[in-house]
């Protein structure tokens, strides 16, 4: 078997990548991709914990992962619709230029 810690290290790395993408990218779509990576990392953790827990038939980890997938789909749909609406108005998807609310 693969030790649980291997999965956790992979998930930690993916989460870090996603965090960096969400913090540091200029393009709003790239920020969204970073968020998707973070959600995936969380999913790996949930499923790995489920698999290595004592109660395999409890399935709570898998159920949560499925909920995350559904929420990620909703988030991507609304997020991308927002980005496209903003692009229509401002002709940019650069998060640095979207500063109307910053006094």
């Amino acid at each position, binding site marked *: *078997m693969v030790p*649980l810690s291997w*999965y956790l290290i992979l998930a*930690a790395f*993916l989460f870090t990548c996603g965090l960096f993408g969400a913090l540091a990218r200029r393009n709003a779509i790239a920020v969204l991709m970073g968020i998707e990576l973070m959600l995936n990392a969380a999913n790996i953790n949930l499923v790995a914990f489920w698999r290595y827990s004592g109660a395999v038939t409890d399935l709570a980890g898998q159920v949560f*992962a499925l909920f995350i997938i559904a929420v990620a789909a909703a988030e991507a749909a609304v997020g991308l619709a927002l980005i496209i609406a903003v692009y229509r108005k401002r*002709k940019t998807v650069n998060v640095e230029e979207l500063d109307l609310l910053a006094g």
Partner: protein
Amino acid sequence: MPIEIPIPTVTQVIFLVMALFTAACGLMVVISRNLFHSALFLVGALFGVAAIFVLLEAEFLAVGQVLVYIGAIATLIVFAIMLTRGMMRGRTSPMNHVSGRGALGALVFFVALLAFLKKVPWPEQAQAIPVDESLIAGLGDKFVTTYVVAFEAVGLLLMVALIGAVMLARDR
């Protein structure tokens, strides 16, 4: 079942290959200069995560991952990239002005996570899993018993997201 491989070395080799692939794709998503390439690497990373799910013997989740993430979300992202095409050319840096601090923060976060991982004695072995369909049936059962409220809430959320996305992106 393809993943019922009892000799540890084979599973571990497959895991290492898939993990390296996933991690490399994940890294390239955030540092690639070309946004379209970022999206392609995202597809690679999502596929790698699906493979990791297969290794964890969660086949239903793996298939759902491919269906929802690659079939729907990645396609949406690529469409959005194509519709906001002006930003595609990598003339300027793809990073914003806080990227240095972002990188530092992410690195500190990663090191902290690893330090935490070191402290806990994680299990090395997982229990055997029933090979029939009882787990998938159990999953469906959980959705309409224990988690029925959350399930309905997600259904409502998806409906609202659908309508909201159409309203937001509609060309007026």
